[in-house]
């Protein structure tokens, strides 16, 4: 299915005045979990939902998945009502904590969810092989899910979300509790999905990771969307200029530059020279990835 954005093609997600209220028993009060959300996500975008706990991100996801009914407003997925089977056929969902049956093993889990999505027979078996390879779960596929680590559960979660080749993916905290190597693999997978033309909507507390993959983000607070836009437009500051050089400047050269800038009207205190820093994740990945292939040498996986 061609899900690339073009004139006239439906938006991947479109909400209008979407509201969810929960009446609180005995207190005669109403909790407004989501307050008149207007949101548009274009096909092929990677869209991040940010916000503190209880800000309405999960409620938004549940409404878009048709798991709960809105109190007001409307939501559509590729132009279809969110509670329709057709909409859910085009959607894949990775829940925050893996909500799977712990008594099933990896293969059985994918087989079960595949059947629910109408994928059967040899097509299903082929798809299971593809996904097991994609998420790197060859060694754990025959073990029950109760023996899986957090990272393995996230992988199987991704696999079941992709089992029916959906056009739109909802990922709720996809890298929560996952080690940095696993996180980066999930991040790479999201980018790969984007290249395939999939739309990805994900929520996360790890802002640096959101920054690396998202095209656009929305920030929620107390049930309202307070900010929305592309990362470039939101993050670029108008004040200030950064200069990057591939080598260190000597103290002498630094002093001469200060004098030039002071002559141009900049105050001493506003001029600073710093050395570039790696992020801890970059250092970790550089260190770990330089080691020999872990999977084939790990005797635990035999």
């Amino acid at each position: 299915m061609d899900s690339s954005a073009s004139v006239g093609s439906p938006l991947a997600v479109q909400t209008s005045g979407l509201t969810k209220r929960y009446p609180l028993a005995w207190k005669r009060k109403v909790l407004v979990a989501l307050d008149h959300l207007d949101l548009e996500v274009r096909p092929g975008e990677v869209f991040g939902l940010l916000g503190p706990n209880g800000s309405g991100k999960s409620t938004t996801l549940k409404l878009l998945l048709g798991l709960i009914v809105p109190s007001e407003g409307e939501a559509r997925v590729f132009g279809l009502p969110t509670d329709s089977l057709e909409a859910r056929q085009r959607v894949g969902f990775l829940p925050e904590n893996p909500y799977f049956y712990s008594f099933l093993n990896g293969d059985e889990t994918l087989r079960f969810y595949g059947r629910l999505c109408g994928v059967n027979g040899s097509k299903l078996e082929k798809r299971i092989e593809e996904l097991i390879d994609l998420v790197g779960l060859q060694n754990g596929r025959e073990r029950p899910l109760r023996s899986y680590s957090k990272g393995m559960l996230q992988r199987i979660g991704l696999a079941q979300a992709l089992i029916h080749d959906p056009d739109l993916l909802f990922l709720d905290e996809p890298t929560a509790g996952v080690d940095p190597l696993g996180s980066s693999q999930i991040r790479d997978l999201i980018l790969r999905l984007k290249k395939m033309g999939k739309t990805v909507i994900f929520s996360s507390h790890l802002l640096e990771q959101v920054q690396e993959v998202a095209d656009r983000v929305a920030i929620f607070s107390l049930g309202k969307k307070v900010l929305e836009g592309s990362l470039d437009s939101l993050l670029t500051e108008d004040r200030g200029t950064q200069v990057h050089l591939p080598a260190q400047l000597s103290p002498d050269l630094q002093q001469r530059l200060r004098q030039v800038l002071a002559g141009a009207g900049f105050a001493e205190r506003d001029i600073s020279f710093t050395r570039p820093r790696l992020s801890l994740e970059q250092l970790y990945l550089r260190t770990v990835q330089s080691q020999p292939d872990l999977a084939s040498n790990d005797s635990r996986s035999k």
Partner: protein
Amino acid sequence: MISSLLRIIAIGRNTFTEAIRSKVLSVLLIFALVLVGCSVLVSQLATPGLDPAGLIDEQIKFVKDFGCGAIGLFGAAIGILATAQLIPQELHNRTIYTILSKPVRRSEFLLGKFFGIVLLLTLCVTLMTLAFAAALYWQEQQGVAYADSIYGQTKNWQADQGLLEHYNHDVAEIHAQVRDPRLVEAILLLFTKLIMTCGIALLISTFASSSIFTIVTTLMIYLIGHMEGTARTFWLSHGAETNLWQSCLVGFISLFIPDLNAFTIVDEILAGNNVPWHHTFDLIGYAVVYLVVLLSVAIVVFDYREI
């Protein structure tokens, strides 16, 4: 339609797999099989000093009654326990979110869950019936051996036509009681009653907040269901003469609680009485229609439930 059926079957198989991999239910089933088999121990408490026919009569009655009683009791325990935790467990573990985020209707989810319970009960009742058949077979062999020993006390008894006639009749009676094809009817009625009880448990679990509530309420309805006939008779004949509250209560029971006592004709079959098949099918038909109503209401309630 076909795809809907396939989804229901997929959920049903998953529910069945979860149940048989559950330690609690497995232990319960093993216990049930042992108890069904132990019904032969109760038969040893039969009245001593009776002639072979009378003694075997009593012993086989004990084995049939206790064996089928164990099937009914444990079938109900397994069915109610398994059904009561279906929805709460899905909600608590949030596995329901992953399923309903797929192209699965809530009705298909519920019907699939119930189908899984039906599969589970079919397996359990089949296994318990096999244990019951083994117990009956053992009792049959014991009975024939006892008849041989009693008649064998008379020298050359096989040459005595009179004794031979008695012996042949006694042994034929033993075989007829044990290999009674009407026992199939009894098991079928037991199974039907169990499925109805699970349907009640499923309906309650669609709006209950905990498994305990579902179990306790289902057990209460199960007991009241055995008195529904009495309540109905009273309400239809004297309902207008009693006070409003009493009339409403009895009326509620008569209108909505199933008549489970009708299924206790299993006891009549076990006692050797003939229950016509058309009557059995009438009861099964009643149970099926009642189940359709229960599941329809359950689907509607579950559809409206916030998860």
